[in-house]
Structure formats: structure tokens, C-alpha cells
């Protein structure tokens, strides 16, 4: 670690991992509710567990992105962070606000939460992923602004690199697009149309810039390949992201009341969205093959390669299978969507955050460039357990989705009702829950890897 202020990333990473654990526990609760409908009913209804699961995911990924920025921006800028104090203050504000929100979800009925937080004044609640009370949303904006200010000031006073610039554009886009979460008209069609400006333009737009720049940073550090080469790749990848992904928003405008020309536009452009993900895979493997040094942190390199492959599979391949409008007509809002959502979020964003944590944490814990061999081997186990079980979760949900579409949406008058079709495919939900338990075991192994082999030294290359 080259700059003292990079240390502020540490609490961000620790909080991220803690919230990740809670996210998975609520995933397992829901997985059980899928097959044992009365589990924890009425104490924790499914919709409550789902909000907790998805909101924790988003919040811990944001902690991860912020931690990543605080770590890599000073190093790229070759200067100390503008204000480590501000970074630490925002950490506590964000953590407390997040925790209070989750407690609110669990402690009182959602309608009560809406009432006591004044949803009447500016109704923004009750939409998927944007369930947070309006005051929490305002809090998020304040934290985001403070964070952006801190990062931008650091970038401005130091060396300007492409990695920093792309990261800053991505983070700014993230904050700006979130403002659309405050737009909630009475007209459901308009509401839905602009809801996607937050959700789609995040994960298939600006977040990919954040992903790309973190990946580029880790590859520069671990492979020693010339920065010029890596930054050129980064530009081409994010260019393709925005060229395909912006109009690609159209793949959500097929059946929500928006005009029908989106069926062609959305299909054509979103069908090209896998290209930047594929380039990311080629990029990562190419750079690692051309490496000029053997970095002792082998597991960080493994995470980086894993991100490149799994993001392509989850977003690229699983996105493509249901993105053409004639296919989406049948798969829209089915378990196929859930299958894709899981592997895409895991492969792209969970894994990139775990990559930077894996790379940065040993140094922040005063262990030179890498953890001991013992600790790394254990972390590699957790990599495989989580990644393989996520592949199985995706496959089981895909099977469930194909059957669901077949039973419920084809076959004319003989088509089954939603609830009857769900019972017929319960086996696959049980299998998904089993894979989910393996995922949790992988996560426990991951955390355990932080506590083993502290005394031993890493092999140096």
C-alpha cells in the first residue's frame, strides 16, 4: 500500500462482506418459502424477505464500489485521498442508515413504514429494488454526493489516469441515474419506463464502467503489462458497453405499454450487449498470458479471471437467451429472468468486488503483497464453492423457467394456472435451495480464509 489514506477502504470492505452474509441468509429463507409456503409466515412474508435480500445486495455492492474507489484512486492519482475523515464519516452514515432501513422492513408492516417515513409527501416507495423509504433515498444521494466530491477532488489534484477517469464517469453516472428513483408518476407506464433508467442503465451501463476500471486496475497491478495497452482495451470495452447498452434499454420496453418499435430496436441492440462482456474475457486472459511478473497474490488473479468468465456467462449468454422480443414474449417475468439476474449479478458485480477485496485486503492488513499460501488455498476453495453453486442455482432456475413457460404459457386452453404450475416444478426449487446451502458454505469458507495462516508468509516469486 502506497498511501496511508487508502486504509479507509478497509471498513467499507468489512461491511460489504457482513451484509453479503445477511443477503444470502434471506435468500435461503425465500428459497425455502418457495417450497414450504408457510415458512415464517406471517412473521417474515416473502415480499419482506425479498426486499431485504435485494436491497442488501445493492447496498453491499455500493460499499464495495466505494471501498474500491477509496483504495485505487489515491494509488492511481499518486496522492493522498482528499479527505479520509469525510470518507469515514460517510461510512458510518451509510451503514447506520442502511441498517435502520433493514430493521424498518423487518420490524413493522411496510404500509406502516411508508406512513411513519412520510411517503405521502413524496411517494417513491413500493417499486422493485427501490423500496427504500424516501428519506433513505435522500440519504443515499447525500452520501453519494459527498463520496463523489471526495473522489473527484483527489483525481483533480493528482495524476489523471484512464482508470481513474472511467471510474469517475461510472460513479457519476450511478449517482445521476439514481435521481430517477424520485420520479414516480401516477401513470404506471411512465413510472415503469423511467424505472428502467435506474435499473437497466445501472447494470448494463454505468456499472460496467466501474467494473471495467476496477478490473483494469487489478490487471495492471498483478500482470505488470504496459498501462497503455490495458487502458486502450478499457476504452474499447466501455465504448461497446454504451453503444449497445443504452438503446439496449429497449429490451424492457416490449410489453409495458411503450410503442412497438422497441421490439426491433431493443432486440437488435441488446443482442449486441454480450460483445463488451466477451471482450472483457478476452482482455483478462490476454493480459494474464502476457504477464511480465508472477504476482504472489494468485487468488486475486483467479477472482479477476472468474469475473471475466462469469460476467460473460451470466450477463452475456444468459442475457442473450431471453433478450429477443419473440423469445421474451414467453419468458418475460419468469424463472428464466431470475436465473439470469442471479448469475449476472454474481458474475459481474459480486465477483469484481471480491476481486478488489482479495487484491487489497492483504496489504491493508500489513501482509505485504499477498496472504499466506494456506489462506489463499482456502480462499480458492471458497471461490469454487460459490461459483460452481451459483452455476447450479442458475441451471436449476433455468430448468424451472423452461417448464414454467411450457406449462403455464403454451398449450392453449390446457395451460395451467400459475400456482398449479409452481407445484409441478417444486423439485427444481428444492434443488436450487440445496445449491444455495452450498453457496452459504462457500461464503463461510471465504470468511474463514481471513483468519487462517496469518503467521505464515506468502511465497514470493
Amino acid at each position, binding site marked *: 500500500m502506497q498511501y496511508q489514506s487508502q486504509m479507509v477502504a478497509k471498513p467499507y470492505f468489512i461491511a460489504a462482506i457482513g451484509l453479503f452474509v445477511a443477503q444470502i441468509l434471506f435468500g435461503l429463507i425465500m428459497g425455502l418459502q418457495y417450497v414450504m409456503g408457510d415458512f415464517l409466515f406471517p412473521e417474515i412474508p416473502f415480499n419482506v424477505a425479498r*426486499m431485504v435480500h435485494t436491497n442488501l445486495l445493492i447496498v453491499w455492492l455500493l460499499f464495495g464500489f466505494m471501498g474500491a474507489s477509496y483504495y485505487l484512486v489515491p494509488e492511481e492519482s499518486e496522492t493522498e485521498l482528499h479527505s479520509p475523515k469525510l470518507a469515514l464519516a460517510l461510512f458510518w452514515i451509510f451503514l447506520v442508515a442502511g441498517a435502520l432501513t433493514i430493521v424498518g422492513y423487518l420490524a413493522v408492516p411496510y404500509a406502516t413504514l411508508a406512513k411513519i417515513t412520510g411517503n405521502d409527501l413524496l411517494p417513491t416507495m413500493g417499486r422493485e429494488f427501490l423500496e427504500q423509504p424516501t428519506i433513505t433515498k435522500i440519504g443515499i444521494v447525500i452520501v453519494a454526493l459527498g463520496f463523489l466530491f471526495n473522489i473527484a477532488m483527489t483525481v483533480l489534484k493528482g495524476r489523471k489516469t484512464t482508470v481513474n477517469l472511467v471510474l469517475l464517469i461510472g460513479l457519476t453516472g450511478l449517482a445521476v441515474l439514481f435521481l430517477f428513483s424520485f420520479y414516480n408518476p401516477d401513470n404506471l407506464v411512465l413510472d415503469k419506463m423511467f424505472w428502467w433508467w435506474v435499473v437497466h442503465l445501472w447494470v448494463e451501463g454505468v456499472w460496467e464502467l466501474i467494473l471495467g476500471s476496477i478490473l483494469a486496475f487489478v490487471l495492471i497491478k498483478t500482470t505488470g503489462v504496459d498501462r497503455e495497452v490495458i487502458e*486502450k482495451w478499457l476504452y474499447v470495452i466501455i465504448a461497446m458497453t454504451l453503444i449497445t447498452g443504452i438503446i439496449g434499454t429497449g429490451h424492457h420496453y416490449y410489453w*409495458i405499454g411503450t410503442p412497438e418499435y422497441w421490439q426491433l430496436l431493443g432486440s437488435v441492440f441488446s443482442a449486441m450487449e454480450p460483445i463488451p462482456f466477451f471482450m472483457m474475457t478476452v482482455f483478462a486472459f490476454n493480459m494474464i498470458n502476457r504477464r511480465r511478473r508472477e504476482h504472489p497474490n494468485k487468488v486475486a488473479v483467479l477472482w479477476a479471471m472468474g469475473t471475466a468468465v462469469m460476467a460473460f456467462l451470466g450477463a452475456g449468454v444468459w442475457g442473450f437467451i431471453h433478450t429477443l422480443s419473440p423469445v421474451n414474449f414467453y419468458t418475460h417475468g419468469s*424463472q428464466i429472468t431470475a436465473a439470469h439476474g442471479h448469475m449476472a449479478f454474481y458474475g459481474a458485480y459480486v465477483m469484481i468486488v471480491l476481486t478488489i477485496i482479495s487484491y487489497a485486503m492483504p496489504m491493508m492488513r500489513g501482509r505485504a503483497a499477498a496472504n499466506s499460501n494456506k489462506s489463499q488455498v482456502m480462499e480458492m476453495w471458497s471461490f469454487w464453492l460459490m461459483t460452481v453453486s451459483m452455476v447450479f442455482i442458475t441451471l436449476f432456475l433455468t430448468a424451472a423457467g423452461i417448464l414454467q413457460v411450457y406449462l403455464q404459457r403454451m398449450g392453449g386452453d390446457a395451460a395451467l394456472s400459475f400456482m398449479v404450475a409452481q407445484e409441478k416444478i417444486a423439485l427444481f426449487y428444492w434443488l436450487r435451495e440445496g445449491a444455495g446451502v452450498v453457496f452459504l458454505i462457500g461464503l463461510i469458507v471465504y470468511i474463514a480464509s481471513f483468519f487462517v495462516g496469518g503467521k505464515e508468509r506468502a511465497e514470493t516469486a
Partner: protein
Amino acid sequence: MSGAFTKSMARNIFYGGSAFFIFIFLALSFDTVRALPERDHRENITPQVALGKKVWEENNCIGCHTLMGEGAYYAPELGNVYNRFGNSKEAIIGFIKSRPVEGNPGRRNMPQFNLSDEELEAVAEFLKWTSEIDDANWPPNIQG
């Protein structure tokens, strides 16, 4: 990538390409917003429909159901429930009202929300309005 293709060329493609497609997207969005009144029948969004949407949101119905294919996949699609229930608001109201507080053992359960009569009417009216949006004939059949 080969040496002839430089970093500054890549950067220009990024800025130029992004700016171009952001512009196209804004133009298309503008056109869409202008075309919507024909399709969403906004003249029928009464204060009651608006209240219904608020009831829908403040009870987080989207946390279990899909609405026009978006939301959660735990419980049935409701964009066309008005049609599935025989074009009857009373059937919708009756269903919501009659959910047992403790649920049915072993089954997936919908909570009892204790809505007022006004709220029940409103949410049913909202679902009726939703079923009339021109959504390119989705879903494929009445089961949603």
C-alpha cells in the same frame, strides 16, 4: 490489439459513440413519451386509480407478484387479473379481503393487509385500468 489502433482512437470512439447513442436514446424517449397517451389511456387515470397505485406501492405487492411481467415471481401476474377474474372488480376485492391472517398451512400465502373499503375499491380500479393498457398483447394467455 494492434499498434496502429491507438489509445486516443479508442478514447474517441468511446466519447463519440456514447454521445451519439445518448442523443438517439433521448430522441426516442421523447417520441415514446409523446406516443404514450394513445396506449396508456391516461384519460382514465382518475383520483381513484391514482390512490390504487399508492395502495399497491405502500403494501409492496410487487414483492411477490409481477405486474406486466415485472416484479417478483412468487405469486401470479396481476396485469391481467381483472380479465382472469371474469372482468370483475368484486372478485378482486373479495380475494384480497378474505386472506387468512395466519395463512394456510403448507401453501404460499398472501398476507391480510386490512385495507379499508376505499382502498380496496381503489386498488381494484387500478388493476382494471392496468389491464386496459395497450401492451402489445402480452401475456401469451390468460394465465399470465
